[in-house]
């Protein structure tokens, strides 16, 4: 029996019934990796610590390369962290290990999570299992590709502006960004502290609920972690949306929305209506400002978060061959010039500028105020709606190299996902169809803070009434 294509819940049933063992499942996944990894390149390194199959949920998991795991090299796909061996486990990693999770390896990503295509990694890109000429999305591209290619049963990624949802959408899988504060950030190498969350990438909605059960929960080592009790998310998996109110923002039908993606969205609306949900048109008037707001606030925080990569304590330290200014400044400049890729440098410069004297008020401060307006828009809509639906991305996966020379157009692909991070609300991307070219289309649902259950319920219902999630790429 082929174990690698199975979901976690199916494997757990198999383990329980004795049809398969955790060790067999792990070895089957390794075999799959051997077969397809040369084409997909989802992983950057295998886990060093040998697996232990004795735990309660011994599911092979891929971890994004920005999740500190004890005794493992963690690099955020950047040269500047090559050789950094984390001396500690992050809060989520502790939970995964406690649950008995079997860590397969560390998945590729855009460097420091800066990107929407997994092309800025210092290890080179990951390839979309559905079409190896295309990007898997980003920044958690490796995590998404690994799950889509069955090189992991499930995976963890991080989402700052869509970095779980967009690659999930491009790779035809489920990806969730939890409410800000729902999952501990202790051990997540920070991009934008007020926006980052760790979340699951899974083959179906049930697996998403299971993995959320493992990772969600208060961590006193994270001051932004919320001490809110964690429900059993699997109890939300009810095939019933009758009476629910789902909002569709008119701003979702913006210019740049691919007609096929639009068609999938409209079909989904029709299906949900048929299943008994009320669909109503709503408005989020400040949507046009979301991307600009994000790229000011997120890059500002990132510029500060990345200041610690200076060559002094860990990772790369470089010195120029010929002295320039003084030894210290030379070391800083050489280390950071050589260690960071172009997108990282771009964002650090943008963020530094937005915070600098004379510009702080016009950029960062104003950005934070517009952020409040964006959040207010969503709060207003949620007074009357249980969830909001949009496409996850305006397009399906684009070709490798297609947007790398136009950073702005790359940034605009985050238009639907960014608002949830700015407002701190949960959001999920689920498979919503395929383009004529066979590329996955993703649908996004956003919910009220700490109402992941609503999202899981609607997603589960939609999933159980469609068959997108059963398809696999031909590798």
């Amino acid at each position: 029996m082929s174990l690698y294509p199975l979901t976690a819940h199916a494997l757990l049933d198999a383990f329980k019934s004795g049809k398969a063992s955790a060790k067999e499942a792990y070895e089957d996944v390794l075999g799959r990796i051997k077969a397809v990894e040369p084409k997909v390149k989802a992983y950057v390194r295998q886990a060093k610590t040998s697996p232990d199959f004795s735990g309660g949920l011994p599911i092979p998991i891929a971890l994004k390369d920005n999740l500190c795991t004890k005794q493992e090299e963690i690099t955020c796909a950047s040269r500047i962290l090559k050789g950094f061996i984390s001396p500690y486990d992050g809060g989520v990693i502790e939970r995964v290990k406690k649950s008995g999770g079997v860590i397969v390896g560390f998945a590729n990503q855009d460097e420091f999570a800066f990107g929407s295509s997994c092309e800025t990694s210092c290890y080179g890109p990951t390839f979309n299992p559905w079409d190896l000429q295309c990007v898997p999305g980003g920044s958690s591209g490796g995590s998404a590709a690994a799950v889509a290619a069955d090189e992991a049963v499930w995976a963890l990624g991080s989402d700052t502006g869509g970095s779980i949802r967009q690659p999930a959408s491009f790779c035809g899988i489920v990806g969730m960004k939890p409410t800000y504060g729902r999952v501990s950030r202790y051990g997540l190498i920070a991009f934008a502290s007020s926006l980052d969350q760790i979340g699951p990438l899974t083959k179906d909605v049930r697996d998403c609920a299971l993995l959320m059960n493992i990772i969600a929960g208060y961590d006193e080592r994270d001051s932004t972690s919320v001490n809110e009790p964690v429900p059993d998310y699997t109890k939300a998996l009810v095939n019933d949306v009758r009476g629910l109110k789902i909002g569709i923002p008119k701003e979702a039908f913006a210019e740049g929305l691919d007609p096929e993606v639009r068609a999938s969205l409209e079909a989904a609306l029709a299906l949900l209506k048929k299943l008994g949900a009320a669909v109503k048109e709503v408005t989020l008037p400040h949507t046009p400002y979301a991307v600009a707001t994000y790229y000011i606030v997120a890059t500002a925080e990132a510029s500060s978060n990345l200041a610690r990569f200076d060559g002094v304590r860990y990772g790369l330290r470089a010195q120029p061959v010929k002295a320039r200014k003084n030894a210290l400044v030379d070391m800083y400049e050489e280390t950071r010039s050589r260690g960071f890729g172009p997108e990282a440098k771009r964002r650090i410069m943008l963020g530094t500028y937005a915070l600098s004297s004379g510009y702080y008020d016009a950029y960062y401060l104003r950005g934070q105020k517009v952020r409040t307006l964006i959040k207010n828009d969503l709060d207003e809509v949620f007074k009357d709606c249980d969830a909001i639906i949009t496409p996850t991305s305006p397009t399906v996966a684009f070709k490798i190299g297609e947007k790398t020379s136009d950073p702005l157009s790359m940034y605009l692909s985050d238009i639907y996902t960014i608002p949830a991070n700015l407002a701190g609300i949960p959001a999920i991307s689920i498979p919503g169809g395929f383009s004529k070219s066979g590329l996955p289309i993703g649908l996004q649902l956003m919910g009220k803070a700490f109402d992941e259950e609503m999202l899981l319920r609607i997603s589960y219902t939609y999933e159980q009434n469609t068959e997108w999630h059963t398809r696999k790429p031909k590798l």
Partner: protein
Amino acid sequence: MSQFEPVIGLEVHLQLNTKTKIFCSCANQYGCAPNTNVCPVCLGLPGSLPVLNRQALLYAIKVGLALNAEINSFIKFDRKNYYYPDLPKGYQISQFDFPVAKDGFLKIKSGNQEKRIGIKRAHLEEDAGKSMHDNTGSCSLVDFNRTGTPLIEIVTEPDLRSPQEAYDYLNILKLTLQYLGVSDCDMEKGSLRCDANISIRPVGQAALGTKTELKNMNSFRAVKAALEYEIRRHEQVILAGGKIVQETMLWDDTQAQTQTMRSKEEAHDYRYFPDPDLVPFTVDYKTIDSVRAELPELPQAKLVRFLSQYELSEYDANILVADSGMADFFEAAVKEYPQAKKVANWLAGPVSMELKNRKIPIHGLKLTPKALVELIAKVEDGVVSNLVGKEVLGLMLDQGKGAEEIIQAKGMAQVSDDSALFAIIDEVIAQNAAVVDQIKSGKPNAAGFLVGQAMKKSGGRANPKKLNELITRKIAGV
């Protein structure tokens, strides 16, 4: 009389003596082997996050209240971004626009006048590590043990008008902070650091002159000396027709002069922004009130009370108040033995000497207030002389025993019995005929010499008053 008036402001950084660091649970301890008292948080490892130490906040509120400041109940932290090897995150977590306390004051006595020095703000921040530069110039070393130590930065308004005032302010501030028990306030250990801002202006002018910032002063004396030097330097520059450059000057104690920081430092743009890892919150009034209720009587109030309640001299009162442990000891002793002046004398005199020699604070002595007054009573009652009393004190401190026990054990009780003294007196008179003659011929004070001789012969145990009386009578009678 100078035509210029100095305008001085001081910034004091104080290390708080909380059990653990400000944002992590590493021990807040001085003197560990380098880089052993660290963790992912204070090392700024990737993925680490800060969590505020509640005690540090309560201490900051305590300091603010003691400085008569307004407490900002809205607590917010900001990142101060700059690069230096001893700053692991590349930013320091500090407070920019919402310091814990603002608009306070500290009263100082300058000469005979009382003056209010405005405290602009007091805020919480984390300390950086320590850099050491190798003498050969081949490398620098960084010790991160100190990173994350909680600091309070106290900034005055530019209200100080002389180096002496600055010196006085620092001493009163240090004493006040010691009373609060929030810090060791030890400049040598680095738990108290001071920077100064100094400008001068023509007397009578309201506008401020260009200021320079002074750093690297390692004692209050150095602060005073550095300010004196810098004021003279400013005067010389201006009188020569030049302009003061706004810059940072380092005090060189060995050369006794200030020097420009060699590296051409561009003004830092710290790019302050609210730290997104620390959620702002409001401290409730109940908490602030409970901190206020726990404030001890502060030194200036205690001094005023001591002067009136115990009718002490200013000299004695100042010595007692200069150490809150000493002041408390004094009051406990006076409760047992209501002779304030006598108790004050013993504390200011022999006890202070013992503290100095033994290099420990008063609470480290094996001496209770009750034990001290027992000793004082013995001296007042003539059981032992004052001189012997001091010796007994030393023995009490060595052995932790009471005065009575020690006096008995060593047979130190003063000999006052007349008959016991006759033999000694006879000897002394016989051996000092010339002095006896002096006394007879009208110099009664020369008897003091004979008393001294007799004391020696008695091993210090004779009652000198008695000796004097008997010697005088004997000589008169002979």
